[in-house]
């Protein structure tokens, strides 16, 4: 596999090289060159990723894990060694392809999108840094490496979301994104430290092949409470999941994701499709065997996922900002993936349909969500606003975009034969097989909602009469550099399901995972029909409301005369407000104020008192020195008496 190894080096080095070259040397001086370098190098890395993938899946070695290369980063004591390496297994290879491919597309797209921007070079540099760190995360061989690139992903997202740093909204959004994810990461780090302390290693291979039995003995002192090492592991697993919780913006740490829309659209698309947010799901998928042994962690994951899924979908139905709708749909889809992973746990035994389904959904979702964002971007680029009010009637003006949009939306709504159908169907199946019937119901409901709001977006954006002067005046056209990636992405959005299904069912199967044995799972051949049926109905409702000849679009759009419930939903259940209240009042106003007060009043106060006291003593000495001779003479006499009595002389 020697040339595969070199190729695999290429996969990482190209984006890194792009970052270095563009960031340090080309920069903003020559935007064209920067763009060319970015596209070329990312192209190479994508190409090599695909080749590696082909070799891997073609070889009979296929579904096993392999470590292509591994370096010692920091040696701690004993087995506790932080390594940097490249792990190859179906999951990581799949992610490699997705990430490199998507980032290539986004890079091409950005040529068009960022054309007028001052800092194009910086943009391309950061974009490549982003994909580089995601790649590093994907192929991590151990928790430590995962965390390293995890943080890098966080910071590069911060830099990209706040790319337009002169916009206050963008800056605060990026800050919020970074700090929220950082908050989650602190727990992640704690989890890593705890688990590595109990297990004595960072390696996935070790952690994933654990069994709970040997950890029943012995306890860990967690400061306030003493817990058995087994419980410590479970706690650790929850903490680690918390990292994913924040990165994947699960409820209630979801609020940074919609606000992150302040960044340039290509950034949003790459964040939402391939990098960043799926990292959380990927983390859980990667550590799946570990989670399976850790008590009810998976159940927790499932509920978090399920709730986020419904919650986001409901909000998405009311939004008018096109990017925000997509953002909430992403949240909802991520909910699907999490849920699927969580649903694998059936009391003590584990089915892995969900695992397959979830990874499969990561795969398909990447393509159609990316293309959707790119489409939204090109729409915005034309009408210069995110608001659905101003769109409409773009079908004629942008036919290619229109087609691609239709494909992607059908895909996300899970209409066969589009890619979304297969993965989502599997997820619903997993929920059913997992005998979590409530969740099962929720997934069906959400798939309906998804179809509804996606088609709402679709109809409002493309159908009906133009509501924008620019569109009316016909200034709208399709930018080539922006349309090509959309068109290219439409293909996998259409086909990746059919192609992928076979692949996934062959390679992403349970024997390869070290999981306790499983039971025969209930088949449900009727499921697809139900799901599709619901989707079709939802689609019809959307059509009635927003596209049918007698639909009252104006009334559908204006925010006034709404029920209070609608307002609550429209304002995202006031979560941003709560967040700011907590941060401002509690953190800055509360703890910080108290801390500073403690220092300024108590510490400085004591110091000041000490100084004051010393000076008072000094004054005492000086007042004695009044120049009064009899007093001086007195001191002589008194001195003798003092030392007579206190002089410690054995008199």
């Amino acid at each position: 596999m020697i040339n595969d190894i070199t190729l695999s080096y290429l996969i990482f080095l190209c984006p890194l090289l792009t970052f270095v070259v563009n960031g340090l040397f080309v920069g903003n001086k020559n935007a064209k060159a920067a763009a060319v370098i970015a596209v070329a190098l990312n192209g190479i890395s994508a190409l090599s990723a695909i080749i590696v993938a082909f070799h891997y899946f073609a070889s009979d070695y296929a579904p096993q894990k392999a470590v292509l290369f591994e370096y010692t980063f920091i040696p701690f004591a004993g087995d506790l060694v932080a390594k940097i390496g490249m792990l190859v297994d179906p999951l990581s290879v799949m992610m490699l392809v997705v990430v490199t491919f998507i980032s290539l597309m986004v890079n091409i797209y950005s040529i068009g999108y960022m054309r007028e921007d001052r800092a194009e070079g910086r943009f391309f540099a950061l974009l490549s840094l982003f994909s580089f760190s995601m790649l590093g995360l994907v192929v991590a061989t151990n928790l430590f490496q995962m965390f390293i690139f995890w943080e890098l992903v966080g910071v590069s997202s911060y830099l990209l979301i706040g790319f337009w740093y002169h916009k206050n909204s963008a800056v605060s959004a990026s800050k919020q994104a970074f700090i929220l994810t950082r908050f989650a990461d602190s727990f992640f780090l704690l989890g890593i430290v705890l688990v590595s302390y109990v297990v004595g290693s960072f390696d996935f291979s070790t952690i994933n092949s654990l069994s709970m039995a040997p950890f029943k003995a012995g306890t860990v002192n967690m400061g306030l409470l003493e817990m058995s090492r087994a419980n410590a592991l479970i706690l650790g697993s929850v903490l680690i999941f918390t990292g994913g919780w924040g990165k994947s913006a699960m409820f209630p740490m979801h609020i940074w994701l919609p606000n992150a829309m302040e960044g340039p659209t290509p950034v949003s698309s790459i964040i939402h499709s391939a990098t960043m947010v799926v990292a959380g799901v990927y983390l859980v998928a990667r550590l799946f065997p570990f989670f399976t042994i850790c008590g009810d962690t998976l159940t927790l994951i499932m509920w978090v996922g399920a709730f986020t899924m419904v919650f986001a979908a409901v909000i998405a139905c009311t939004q008018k900002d096109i990017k925000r709708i997509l953002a909430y749909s992403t949240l909802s889809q991520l909910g699907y993936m999490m849920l699927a992973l969580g649903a694998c746990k059936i009391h003590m035994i584990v089915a892995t349909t969900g695992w397959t389904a979830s990874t499969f959904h990561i795969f398909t979702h990447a393509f159609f969500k990316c293309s959707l964002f790119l489409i939204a971007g090109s729409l915005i680029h034309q009408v210069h606003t995110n608001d659905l009010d101003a769109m409409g009637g773009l079908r004629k003006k942008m036919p290619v975009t229109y087609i691609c949009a239709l494909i992607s939306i059908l895909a996300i709504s899970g209409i066969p034969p589009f890619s979304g159908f297969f993965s989502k169907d599997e997820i619903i199946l997993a929920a059913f097989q997992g005998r979590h019937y409530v969740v099962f119901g929720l997934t069906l409901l959400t798939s309906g909602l998804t179809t509804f709001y996606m088609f709402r977006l679709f109809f409002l954006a493309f159908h009906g009469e133009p509501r924008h002067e620019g569109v009316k005046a016909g200034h709208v056209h399709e930018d080539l550099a922006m349309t090509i990636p959309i068109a290219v992405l439409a293909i996998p959005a259409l086909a990746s399901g059919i192609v992928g299904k076979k692949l996934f069912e062959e390679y992403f199967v349970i024997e390869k995972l070290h999981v306790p044995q499983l039971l025969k799972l209930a088949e449900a051949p009727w499921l697809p029909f139900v799901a599709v049926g619901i989707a079709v109905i939802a689609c019809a409702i959307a059509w009635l409301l927003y596209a049918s000849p007698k639909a009252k679009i104006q009334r559908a759009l204006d925010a006034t005369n709404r029920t209070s419930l609608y307002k609550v939903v429209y304002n995202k259940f006031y979560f941003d407000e709560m967040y700011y209240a907590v941060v401002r009042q509690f953190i800055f106003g509360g703890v910080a104020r108290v801390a500073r007060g403690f220092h300024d009043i108590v510490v400085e106060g004591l110091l000041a008192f000490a100084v004051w006291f010393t000076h008072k003593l000094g004054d005492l000495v000086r007042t004695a020195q009044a120049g009064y001779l009899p007093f001086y003479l007195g001191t002589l006499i008194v001195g003798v008496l003092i030392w007579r009595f206190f002089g410690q002389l054995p008199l």
Partner: protein
Amino acid sequence: MSSLLNMNIIIPDVLLLLFPFIVIGIRLFCDFRSKLPWRIANFGFIAIFVLLNFIPLASGEGRFLISNWKVDDFGVLMREVLMISAILGMWLSKDYFEHGADGKPQMHQIAEFIGAIAFATFGGVTVVSACDLLTFFLGLEIATIPMYALTAWNKKDQLGSEAATKYILMGSVATAFELFGFSYLYGFAGSLHFSEIQQAVAAGTSPLLWLAVLFLFCGIGFKLTLFPFYTWAPDVYEGAPTPVTAVLSVTSKATAIAFLVVLVFGPLAPVQEQIAPFIALLAGTTLFVGNLGALKQSRLRRFMAYSSIAQAGYIMVALLGPATMAKTAIIYYLFVYAVSNYLAFFVFGIIGHHREETFASLRGLSKQNPGIAIALAISMFSLAGIPPLAGFFGKFHLFFSGASTGHYAIVAFAVLNNVLALFYYLQLIKSAWVDEPDGHLTPLRLTKRQRSVIITLSIAVVIIGVLPFLSNNIFAGFNY
């Protein structure tokens, strides 16, 4: 041969004794503006200092002349300290007297002045070479009485005479205490000779002895400005002319501490253990009070008074140690202290030429004349005991000697007091370096002598500590 040797050894002492008569005598035979007495004075002092350096150290018990005049290593080294102090004091006073400073009128009679200094020095010499109480007492008096005169030197100066009055009244009381101490010691031992007293003390103690110790320490506490006998010092230091203050702060302190060393490691050596707590108490209270008093001073000489009170406290710490260490430490410290102190006083003298000797008149010094400002900073940091300046090593010797017998508490206390000391030395440095001058600065004029002396002393302060020769030689002198 041995007698001849002895003769050689006391040549410097004899010269020192004759010296003032010569100088003053010559002064009588020539008009008051001739340079002759001054030249002779210079020559004489330096000659004596050089001669002293020919006396070999490491000479065991020291050599006795007529049974009560001993010349041992401690004596020789103390002589050198005293001579250095005398020479520097003479040079300091020369320029100072050209025109009286700090609002004081001009002074003449430099020859008599030098003579007085010489007498004081000889008193110190007597103290260190005494072998019985009588010589001891006489030495002390010879060292003290000229000081009274020097303080009141400037007849036209009101403050000077007031200071002198306070000084002499309290001084006589202290003398009375000492005499009482001596008398009880004599009564206890039945003899005046140190060796016999030592035997008597070793034989056994009695309240009479402790009474003697109490009175002796209280009496010398006055000269050494120990708590609470220091009260005269600030007033006298401020009232006296600057050169006199300098001589007071070095020569008379050196004499006093020499007195204690001779006493504690001579007659009282057997009971050093018992009086250690007393010494520690004296040291601790003194340095604390001295530091406290100096905190908020605004007049330079008064400030130096308090600082020297604190220094006395530090010196006392060394008395807790064994003889060798203590003597090394004290001699070394006195060298360093003399150098640093005189450096400071030279600077004050120059300031005093043109302005009042207050903190305020130091302002803008660093801008106007960086050299002097640096010298001032060096001397202050040295007095504060900041390495690598000599003052630190001096203090280190003292604490080392104190700690060697396990008195960590007092050492720790003294060391922590250094912070307090550093604070007020920084105050002074602040006014020289940081504060902006208010209004016009009168230009400072340095004579060649002053410049060269200041440079020499600054260099000395910087290198004495770091280069081991001084410390090593003194030490080598003692561990025979």
